[in-house]
């Protein structure tokens, strides 16, 4: 295998890193680039805890090779809350929407993408947008209510 040097814009900052062809994006983000918000839950595309924005769209970074991200823009939770918590994050805090918080980074990014494309979603649209983000603690209601609250504003 030949190592490659990839360059990407990570949370607004240009970064380069050496990767092997079989390195997976989530591992490179966490272990080589020091960004810890994407979590590895299932490692097989089912749970959404590894969600990041790749060129503006949510993807499962456990199913992306790091080399594929060469030349792309990657935004993680750290990137969207650079200037303090967003309105959406504040709504989650107000309602204590999370318990253990493991699903939170992915959930926040999925909801952020939804609200960017559709600022006033219906409840079903919210449910659909986070259907791929599993939460084992909350039963989802406080999460959906927080997103609804922001979408009403």
């Amino acid at each position, binding site marked *: 295998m*030949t190592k490659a040097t990839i360059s990407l814009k990570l949370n607004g900052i240009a970064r380069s890193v050496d990767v*092997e062809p*079989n390195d997976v994006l989530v591992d490179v983000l966490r272990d080589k680039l020091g960004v810890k918000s994407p979590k590895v839950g299932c490692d097989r595309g089912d749970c959404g805890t590894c969600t990041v924005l790749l060129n503006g769209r949510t993807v499962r970074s456990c*199913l*992306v090779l790091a080399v*594929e991200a060469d030349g792309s823009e990657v935004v993680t939770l750290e990137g969207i809350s650079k200037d303090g918590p967003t309105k959406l994050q504040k709504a989650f805090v107000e309602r204590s929407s999370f318990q253990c918080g493991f699903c939170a980074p992915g959930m926040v990014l*999925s909801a952020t993408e939804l609200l960017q494309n559709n600022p006033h979603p219906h409840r079903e649209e919210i449910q659909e947008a986070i259907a791929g983000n599993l939460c084992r603690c909350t039963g989802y209601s406080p999460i959906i209510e927080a997103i609804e609250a922001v979408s009403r504003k």
Partner: protein
Amino acid sequence: MPITTEFAYHKPKDLAEASALLARYQGRAMPLAGGTDLILWLKEGLKAPEAVIDIKGIPELWHLDVKGGSLAIGARVTFTELIESELVKERFPVLWEASRTVASCGVRNRATLAGNLCAAVPSLDGAPALLVYDACVRTRGPAEEREIPMSEWFTGPKRTALLPEELVAAVELPLPAKKTAGCYVKLGRYQGEDLAQVGLAVLAEAGGTWKLAFCAVGPVAKRAERIESLLNGKKLSDALIAKAKALVAQEISPITDIRASKEYRLHMAAVMLERGLKTAAARLAGKGPAYGASLI
């Protein structure tokens, strides 16, 4: 979990370069588009190619437009792009409706229709709609291009007519000559992010022609031709629907697996057929639920 197999990574700039690479590896390379299946197979050791050929750098595979009377969907087009396309929603609403049921948003942003067809699992949501629209798959091999009708594409569970040195260039759907309406009915264990327990696409054409295709209830997705011939040219009535439902057991051969029992699938396939026929007929008459509404 790291990927333990080692492979080379190539990102060709055009189809000719991709074909040359596939030929060079003599079937030991695999094309990579969205990766939502392939990366998982690599992690689980189900595939161990010598090289992966990333096709996302090939502009020819990004097309989503009408050419010569057909809609051409390039191999790099994702389900999200299909859902966001007015053209798909207007002209091929059954494909639009089916695309919305595939996995979850974060997967659809990356997963491609072509990749779905290549994975060829029996439950693939993309296939029934393509079958009722008489789509074909355009492939590119080292020496020639081929056009494979959807009806000949699947050769078994996870098997297709694609040869090891070929790649899918596009999926093509002829523009319907007549007015059509239809639906995709999907049964899952819950709504959102689940594989189909039963999937059914129905297409009603003005003039009384019906096209129906099932997935997840046999080794491959396929048309329900006996039911189609029963329905063609007749007016939809409760008696006719009952006859059609009685034919379901001859059309499908479901198995019991982790997602549903054989009996449940058989029963629900008939229930879904009734709803599907009624919904398609209502939509053809300008009534019925909007596309995208859940029919289960």
